[in-house]
């Protein structure tokens, strides 16, 4: 019986990855439910989410996917990884955390569409996410870095003024002697390479999937 079950799982995995990438909400939901019922293995769902996030990130980079697609994908991932987490809980297990992300929209800015997509996707691929919300002052970021000791600090913002707040936050981190302890990624509609250099961040991204991909790469490097 074992080989049959194995084949079944692989197909399930492939089908679920495909239905997420095709942004088919209904199919993804039904498939995830069936997988959890039949295999009782939430890891298949988590793995599908991880693989789908990677493909979606690549598609976004190539210009094949857009923010609207990321929002839909984020919704699907949030829903099905929620189902998987629930199953895990029923089984009395906990999910392996691949890394810790501290994130927030920087001081002076209250926009959160982009940040929320990152949160959904990062949680879906296995990050523990501490979301500080919007309009977060530099001092609060610094305190939170001290308290939670994250692997990655994500600074989000849409307004041009957010770039200044990002720089201030990174400067405060340096002053507190914490800069070398975390990787810093900045994100938002108006960040670019210039902004990244000015802020003193390690990476920048205009889109959530690519951002998550960068963070996954960092965690892989760290694990080596």
């Amino acid at each position, binding site marked *: 019986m074992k080989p049959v079950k194995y084949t079944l799982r692989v197909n399930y995995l492939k089908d679920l990855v495909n239905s997420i990438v095709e942004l088919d909400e209904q199919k993804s939901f039904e498939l995830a439910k069936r997988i959890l019922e039949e295999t009782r293995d939430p890891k298949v769902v988590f793995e599908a989410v991880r693989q789908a996030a990677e493909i979606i990130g690549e598609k976004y980079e190539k210009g094949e996917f*857009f*923010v609207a697609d990321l929002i839909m994908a984020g919704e699907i991932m949030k829903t099905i990884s929620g189902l998987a987490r629930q199953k895990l809980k029923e089984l009395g297990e906990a999910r392996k955390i691949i890394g810790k992300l501290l994130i927030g929209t920087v001081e002076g800015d209250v926009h959160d569409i982009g940040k929320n997509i990152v949160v959904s996707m990062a949680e879906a691929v296995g990050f523990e996410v501490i979301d500080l919300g919007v309009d977060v002052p530099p001092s609060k970021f610094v305190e939170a870095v001290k308290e939670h000791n994250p692997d990655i600090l994500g600074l989000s913002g849409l*307004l041009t003024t957010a770039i200044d707040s990002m720089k201030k936050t990174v400067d405060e981190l340096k002053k507190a002697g914490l800069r070398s302890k975390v990787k810093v990624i900045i994100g938002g509609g108006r960040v670019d390479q210039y902004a990244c250099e000015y802020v003193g961040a390690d990476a920048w991204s205009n889109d959530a999937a690519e951002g998550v991909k960068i963070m996954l790469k960092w965690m892989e490097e760290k694990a080596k």
Partner: protein
Amino acid sequence: MVDMSSTSFDHLSKWIERHEREPELVAKEKLDRIIRITELKTPDRVPLLAPSGDFMLNQTGLTWYDLSYELTDKVKKAVSKFALEYPGDFAIFFVPYLLEGFILAAAFSDFPDFSNSIRFISGLLHDVLRDKWSRWPGRELRVDQHPQFIGGEFMKPEEYSKLVEDPVGFIHGTILPRACSGLGSPGTPQWNGAWIRAGFAVQRAMGFMMETLMQLKGYPATPLTNAYVPADIIGDFLRHPTGAILDIRRHPDEFKAACDALLEPVLKVATAIPPIPPLTMFFIPLHLNEMLPPKLYNEFYWPYLKKIIETLVGKGYKGFVFFEGDHTPHVDTLLELPKGWGIAWFERPRDFVKSVWGKLKGHTTVAGGISPMLFYQSPEKVEEYVKNLLQEIKPEGGFMIAPGVSELPKDANPASVKAFINAVLKYGVY
């Protein structure tokens, strides 16, 4: 490298001096440049869009609270001084109208005498309406924080049919009471009184904006009317962009029907100000555009934007459309519009020269080419960049050099901003 040993910005100094000496002539030259580029012709020099935003505040010592609420001579003078020190051919100083409010214009689209005056939200109006779409310095935000449009969800997906049936009635009866706690319920004394107060607030804000613009030396007054893409009304004011984007996939027919229904009020607002020769532009900022994949853009967004532009251009207006974000994937669709329809201003296309200018030159007037982040670079680098960009773009006309958004960051290097203007004056002559 460009030799910047003098760093005296000679061209800029001379232009500033002319703004003071012969403001009417300078204003006329600026207007001529804008008219020429909208006709896709070469003006005497490439026109430039003036900088503003946080950078302006840093230079003037004003706060966002001042710009939003202090309708005083101090503010007027500071804005005029800034507009003189960092001049442009085309300027966007909407003080104190600082945030999107097109839903209000749509709500009053049957009132051509004031629908355009209530198209933006001012802090004064926000105080009366207590709307949940916007947040203001000195109110929900600190005095030094930029007013912020956050939108929100004020309509459920099940309510599309009501919006479709009677858009204006639905906005008044359902959306405004939900989104504006200052209004109370329709028909109550609070509701009626609040609208009278709103009228006063609009009049004060409008008056102040006109007075501020009149004080600017060497700037032409061009009439401007307003339009909006139906999908953005839904995203910005009714369902939140996230909700709108999910609706397009989950409730496509209802979404499209709502866009159809919203077209009429949008066109009523736009035509409330008649097209006055030589140039009356209609302003449309786009929001959902860059977020949508071409398939969805072509079905739920572009047909409506196209219809609005074609209708208004047919009536004698010219467009001034802000393409937020990276519009590159949708640039080709603009070629479906009549040649010379207006100015397309691009925020941050992936490759401005190749994918925007290369495709649109000779068909659409293009504005853009400068990342606001460039102003963190040295004056020498800025001059070099402008010089190279202009070399690539000239000799064709129909171009305005502009930062991707007029709002420059607070810490933008003043010398670099001056170097930008100076370089355009120096290298932009045809």
